């Protein structure tokens, strides 16, 4: 862990310490910045917000969105929920796992893509849906997902 990250984290803590219900916005700020919530930040957060380290750990791990380890360069999410299932997301998910050689919550060997499941992106009118980083994609077929993967790998 570089000192630079710790300085960043301390700045986020400083900016949030007086916010009512500070923990969630603070964890978001840290993850947006660092890419995940490093365990080393727990004690600093706990101290600033008057919580126990266990409480901070409990919150970070309760929510699917927060990561405790650095992800790949890009995050590819495939929607697994009902509307997308009705439009073939299961086959899509199998294809993506095979193509990337990873399961959910894993990162490709080249570090380019972390694959995650998601339960509805609100894009159910254009199922099956996926997202790459913050960009939602609709009516995703094999061709489209290949494009997304190639782009993420910088091809």
């Amino acid at each position, binding site marked *: 862990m570089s000192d630079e990250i710790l300085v960043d984290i301390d700045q986020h803590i400083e900016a949030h310490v007086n916010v*009512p219900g500070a923990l969630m916005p603070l964890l978001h700020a840290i993850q947006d910045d660092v890419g995940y919530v490093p365990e080393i930040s727990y004690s600093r957060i706990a101290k600033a917000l008057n919580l126990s380290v266990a409480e901070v750990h409990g919150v970070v791990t309760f*929510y699917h969105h927060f990561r405790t380890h650095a992800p790949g360069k890009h995050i590819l999410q495939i929607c697994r929920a009902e509307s997308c299932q009705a439009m073939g997301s299961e086959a899509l998910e199998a294809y993506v796992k095979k193509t990337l050689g990873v399961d959910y919550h894993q990162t490709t060997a080249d570090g380019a893509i972390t694959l995650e499941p998601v339960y509805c992106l*609100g894009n159910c009118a254009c199922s099956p849906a996926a997202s790459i980083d913050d960009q939602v994609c609709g009516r995703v077929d094999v061709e489209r997902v290949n494009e997304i993967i190639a782009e993420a790998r910088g091809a």
Partner: protein
Amino acid sequence: MAITIYVPRDSSALSLGANRVAANIQAEADKSGVEIHLIRNGSRGLFWLETMVEVRTSKGRVAYGPVMPKDVASLFDADFINGGAHPLHLGLTDEMAWLKKQERLTFARVGITDPVSVEDYVAHDGFKGLKNALTKSGAEIVKEVTDSGLRGRGGAAFPTGIKWNTVLNAPADQKYIVCNADEGDSGTYSDRMIMEGDPLVLVEGMTIAGLAVGATQGYIYLRSEYPDALVTLNEAIANAYQAGYLGEDICGSGQCFHLEVRRAAGAYVCGEETSLLESLEGKRGVVRFKPPLPAIEGLFGKPTVVNNVISLATVPIVLDKGGKFYQDFGMGRSRGTLPIQLAGNIKQCGLVEKAFGVTLRELLYDFGGGSASGKPIRAVQVGGPLGAYLPESQFDTPLDYEKFSEIWAVLGHGGIVAFDDTVDMAKMARYAFEFCAIESCGKCTPCRIGSTRGVEVMDKIIAKQDHAKNITLVRDLSDTMLNGSLCALGGMTPYPVLSAINHFPEDFGLKKGQVA
């Protein structure tokens, strides 16, 4: 004079390339020296036609769609900026049958205005409800909402006016308005469309709620899967502050209301109101015991209104046109309109706002045009992952809270997900348990353990092991979850499971018509 062109910023439109369409239109206009005014509107909700581009002409707005980025050059060649003929030409937007057949009250402005422009909002009847509310007492506002018959659109259908009245009458130094924008149900996207397409109506609705009950702080708890909505909401809120519709002195009335968006973090259960409040307070999203009700002891222990996006976004029209106007729509005890979302295997997916009473069949076939695959629609799930699956024999049920409960189904947040005849309902029942296991907050055993057991038993049924015994086991398990769960996540997971078994027994290795 500059030509006004509309390209949606709705994230479903973006998911189909709307940003590239917009960029190409700007580039093409620059190239041909045409001066255009590009407005990024919300979606009109005809998603099979997205990206739907509109041009303002002397006859009205003319639509083109579905426009792909590569189509833009040919649109210019066809003089689309003056409504010219083109294979993608759809005619006047206002004349489109799909829209004309709707009753758009909550969605009156979505797709029409610039979502973040206060000026445009006001020009389309925005803030009229707030202006009326500012002339009324809290009790009078609450009465108007009660008279409208509005029931919560987040799922439980509790009368909004009655909830507000409890908060109004709870004495406290601080009260809160919390907007539930967690919209976790598969097949639903109406909250998102409001937040991306007309966020100021939500700002207005929450402000009116604040005036009604005496709350000065509002929070919008927004799911983290909606990054585009976050941007639109924050822009709209900043503009509302700037124009004096939020802040210390709303419209010079001396009344105060502050509003802030808070991001959720991907837990479905945080859509449950008490879990949501825990999360807002910075804790794990574990469901609270009730009582106390959030209306008495809610956020930070203070009286709190928790309402769904659509409930709150419907308040402005109620305060503008009166409770009576709104309650004249609908049937039975389901008053007003419901923004229905067509999803899954449907040819024409989109947003249909209709008065209660419209049937599933009308929605699936008249609006939806049948399945996308061309195969028969075999099952529909209404009301999200905790909603029942309905077979064709129930498609004539009118959308009405009571009519749905009579057939052991729910309307929920108004999402309809259709499946064609390739669906395996045993797999869907397994998924219902799996989803519950993934999302359970862990507080009660029937939900936490029962859901995992449910997955195991469904696996055995799918593998055709000990069939009769395992079906009985699923039923017992469902019974325990129905009766022994603290919230509807555990308590309603049996709806999709049991409805699947009861209506589609043949997928569970039972004879058609056989109820094990």
